[in-house]
C-alpha cells in the first residue's frame, strides 16, 4: 500500500509539471509561433500612450526578451526555490512556492491564491455535502419507488437541475430569496470575514443550494441508475434470502456497491470545484479561485492564469488520488484485487 501511495504521489508531481509545461506553452510559446514579438506581449502590460522604448523596457522587466526555456526555467525555479522581485523601490523575496507576480498589479500570485482557496473550499465543501445527501437520497428513493409519481417528479426536478445553468438559477435565487424576500445576504460578502460560523453558513447558504441543485440532480440520476442495476444483482437477492431487513439490504449491499462510480465522480467534481466554481463565485461575488480566474483571463494576466491552472490541476490530481485510495474502503472487491 505504501509503495502504491509513493508511486501515485510521484506520478502526481510529474503530471503537475507536465501541466505547467503545457500551460506555459499555451500562453508563451503559441503567441510566439503566431508571430508576436516580446514587445507585442509586453504592450498589454503598459499604460496608455507610452512609447516603444517603454514597451521594450517593460518586455525586459517581465523577462519576455529571454529565450523561452529560460523563462520556463525561471518559473519552475520560483515554484520550487522561490525568487527575488524588484518592485522599483527595492527587492523582496518571494518564497517557494512562488507563482510569480501579476504583470498588472505587480503583487505576488501565491498569497492571492492562499487567501482565496478557503472561500472556494467553503463553497465547494458545503455544496458537496448538500448535493451528496440530497442527490444520493433522492436517487435511492427514486430507485426504490421506481415508476411511481414520486420517482417521476423527483427525476423531473433532477432534469431541471441538470439543465439550468448556474447563472440563471443563481440570479433567480438571488432575486427571489435575497432581494425579494430578504432571507439571505445580498451578495458581495466574504464569508471568511465572519467570526461566527453560523454567519459564515448564512453567507453561503444560497450559493451552496444553487450549486448543489446542479450537482444533486446529476447525482440523483446516477444513484438511481446505479441502484436499479445493483438491486437486481444476485448478491442482493441472496441478502434478502438471508432474511436481512430491507434497510440493511439497501444500505449495506445495494448502496455500497452503487457508491463506487459515484465516489469517482464525486472526487473529480470536488477537485474541479476546488479549482474554482467560476459561475457560482462570479454570480454571488465570492472572492474565490474561480472569480480570480475570470479576472486573470479578462486581463490577460498570465502569472495569475498559470497560478489558477496549477492550483486547479493540483486539486484534481489530489482528489483522484484520494478517490483511488477510498475505493479500497468502499468496495471490498478492490481490496481483494
Amino acid at each position, binding site marked *: 500500500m505504501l509503495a502504491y501511495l509513493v508511486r501515485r504521489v510521484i506520478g502526481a508531481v510529474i503530471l503537475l509539471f507536465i501541466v505547467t509545461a503545457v500551460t506555459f506553452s499555451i500562453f508563451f510559446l503559441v503567441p510566439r509561433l503566431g508571430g*508576436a514579438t516580446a*514587445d*507585442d506581449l509586453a*504592450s*498589454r*502590460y*503598459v*499604460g*496608455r*500612450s*507610452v*512609447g*516603444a*522604448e*517603454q*514597451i521594450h*523596457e*517593460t518586455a525586459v*522587466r517581465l523577462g519576455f526578451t529571454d529565450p523561452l526555456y529560460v523563462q520556463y526555467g525561471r518559473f519552475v525555479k520560483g515554484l520550487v526555490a522561490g525568487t527575488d522581485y524588484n*518592485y*522599483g*523601490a*527595492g527587492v523582496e523575496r518571494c518564497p517557494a512556492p512562488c507563482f510569480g507576480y501579476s504583470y*498588472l*498589479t*505587480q503583487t505576488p500570485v501565491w498569497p*492571492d491564491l492562499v*487567501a482565496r482557496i478557503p472561500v472556494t473550499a467553503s463553497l465547494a465543501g458545503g455544496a458537496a*455535502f448538500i448535493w451528496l*445527501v*440530497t442527490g444520493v*437520497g433522492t436517487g435511492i428513493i427514486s430507485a426504490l419507488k421506481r415508476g411511481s409519481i414520486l420517482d417521476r417528479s423527483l427525476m423531473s426536478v433532477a432534469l431541471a437541475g441538470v439543465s439550468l445553468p448556474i447563472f440563471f438559477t443563481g*440570479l433567480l435565487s*438571488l*432575486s427571489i430569496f*435575497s*432581494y425579494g424576500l*430578504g*432571507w*439571505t*445576504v*445580498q*451578495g*458581495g460578502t*466574504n464569508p471568511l470575514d465572519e467570526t461566527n460560523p*453560523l*454567519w459564515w*453558513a*448564512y453567507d453561503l*447558504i444560497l450559493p451552496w443550494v444553487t450549486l448543489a441543485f446542479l450537482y444533486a440532480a446529476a447525482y440523483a440520476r446516477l444513484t438511481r441508475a446505479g441502484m436499479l442495476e445493483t438491486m437486481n444483482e444476485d448478491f442482493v437477492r441472496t441478502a434478502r434470502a438471508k432474511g436481512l431487513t430491507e434497510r440493511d439490504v439497501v*444500505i449495506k449491499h445495494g448502496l455500497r456497491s452503487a457508491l463506487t462510480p459515484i465516489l469517482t465522480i464525486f472526487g473529480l467534481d470536488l477537485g474541479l470545484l476546488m479549482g474554482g466554481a467560476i459561475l457560482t463565485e462570479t*454570480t*454571488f*461575488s465570492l*472572492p474565490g479561485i474561480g472569480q*480570480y480566474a475570470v*479576472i486573470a483571463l*479578462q*486581463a*490577460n494576466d498570465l502569472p495569475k492564469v498559470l497560478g489558477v491552472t496549477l492550483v486547479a490541476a493540483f486539486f484534481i490530481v489530489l482528489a483522484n488520488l484520494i478517490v483511488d485510495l477510498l475505493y479500497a474502503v468502499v468496495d471490498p472487491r478492490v481490496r481483494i484485487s
Partner: protein
Amino acid sequence: MRWNRITTATAVSAAVALSLVACGGPKAKPGGSASEGGGATPEFNAAVGKIFNPSDKKGGTLRMAITQNWDSTDPGDTYYGLSWNLVRNYVRPLMTFAAKPGAEGAKPVPDLAEAPGVPSDDAKTWTYKIRKGIKFEDGTPVTSKDVKYAVARSLDKVTLPNGPTYFNDFLLGIPANYSVYKDPTLAGVAKAIETPDDNTIVFHLNKPFASFDYFAQLPSTAPVPQKKDTGAKYKEHPIATGPYKFESYNANTGISLVRNDQYDPSTDPDSGRKALPDKITVAFNVEGTDIDNRLLAGDLDVDIAGTGVQPETQAKILADPKLKAHADNVPAPRLNFTVINSQVAPLDNVHCRKAVLYAADHEGYQRAYGGPIGGDIATNLMPPGITGSEQFDDYGFKTDKNGNVDKAKQELQQCGQPNGFAMNIAYRTDRAKEKAVAETLQQSLKRVGINLTTKPYPTGDYTKLYAGKPAFAKANKLGLIVYSWGADWNDGFGFLSQIVDSRVIREAGGNTNLGIRIPEVDTMIDQALKTTDETARNKIWVDIDKKVMEQAAALPGIWAKGLLYRPDTLANVFTNDGQNMYDYAAIGLAQK
C-alpha cells in the same frame, strides 16, 4: 444505523438552514442609515449639476463597490476617472477640481498650492507656492521637494505604468526611460523641476503649455515622501495628506479609508472637500447586477465606477417611476465615435469619407447605446460639457437622423466611386454596443453601395495590436474603427489632443488616435498650447473640432450619458462637469 445517520444529518442541516433564515434575516451591515433622503424628495435628475439633499452632517460609512478593480490607488500610477475622483479624499495635488456642482466643478482650484500657477517664459515655466501647515498622515510637514519627488517618480512608466504621460512629454530634458529608483538624487529632473525653497516649486517645459493648471491637478502632483516610497507597492498605502488615510488594502477584496487626524481643514479653503463620512469602504470584484441590486435595496451607497447601471437594471429603473426618481442621467465627457482611417483607400479621398458621414444612420448609432438615455446624437467631436465647446451640425445629423442617401451618393460620385466600395469595420469583441454600431453602419452604408465587413478584435489588444496599430489597420483594410473616448479633463486639450493630434500616433501601436492625420490640425494644436488667454484658446479648440469634421476624419456617434442610481442613504450628492459622476469629495450620508 447508517440510515439513521443520514436521516439525522439531513434533518440537522435543514434545521440549521431554517433557523439561520428564521433568526437571521438580512444581516444588519454597518453603513449609511436608511432615512428617506434626509427630507428631500427624490426626483429624476435631482443630482445632475445641483445638490440633492444638501448636508454638512458628518458620520457613517460610505459603502462603495466596483465590478473588478481599477489600475491603482497610487496617485502617481492611475488613469481612471473614478480614481481621480476618489483620490482627492486621501491626497492633495497642487490643484484640484472644485467639489461643486455643475460647471463650477470643472475648474481647477488651488489645493496644495496657495494659488494657480504663475506662467513665465511664454508659458514654458510655471511656478507654484505650496501652502504652509499641510502635513502627511505621520505629522511630517509637506514641502515642495515632496511634490518634486512625486512628479519625478510618476515618470517611471515601467514601475508605475498606468498614469498619463503628460509630464514625460512636456517636462524639459527628461532622459529616456527615466526612473527615480535608479536616480535617487533626482539629477535627471534637475532641468525640469526646481525647488528653490521648501514652499516653491518651478516646472520647466520643453514647449509652451498655457493650461498647465490642468497638469497641476493630476493626482501625480500629490506629494510623496521619498523615504516612504515603496515603488509598485506604494498603492497599498499612499501616504495621506487629505482628510482620509488608508486603513486597509486588499487587492482582491477592497480598501477602507478612515479619517486622517493630521488633516487640517483650515489649510483647505478652496477645494470644497466636505469629508462627511467617517469611513469609506470600496469592495472590489462585486458582480455588476449584484451591485445594482444592492444599490436598489439600500445595502450599498455608490457604484464607484460611476458609468451607469447595467442594461437590465436600467430597463427596470426606467419602467418604475419610484426607482426613476432615484436616478440621474449624467452627461459624460465621452464621445462614442467611429474613426475614418484615411490610410485605407479610397478613404484617402475626403469625398468618400463624407459619403460615410452622410449615409450613416445616426439614430441607429444612438439606439446601439440604449437610445436617448445612453446619450445624445453627436454632431461634432467635443461633448457639450467640455469648457468652451460649441455644438454645430454641418452635415445635418439631427435633421437627417437616419442618414441622407442622396448626399452620400453625390459624394461618392465626386470621389470617383459611384457604385460604392468595400471596406472593413473594426470593433471590440466583448462590447455588444460597439457590435451593434458596426451592424447598424453596415446596414445603413449598404444603401449607397458601401459594403462593410465586420471585424471584431479582443478588447485588451484592440489599440495595442490591432485597430490602434497603424500597420495592422492598413494591412487589414480597417477603414472604419469603432471607438470611444473620454476626456482626461474637460477642456479642449484634455478631450481632443490625444485623438486628433497625428504626432501622438506611434507605429508600435497602443494609440488613442486611431488614424486622424490632418497637418493643419497639428499646427492649430501648437497654437492652442501657447495661447494663455482662455477664451482665445477655447476658440482654437472649437476650430480644430470644425477642421476635423470638415475633413470628415471621424463619424461622431453619441455624446454619452450614464444612468446612475442614487439610494436614499446618500446626502449632499451631486454631479459636476469635472467628475461627470457623483463627486466623491463632497458626498455624505443621510443621517437619521
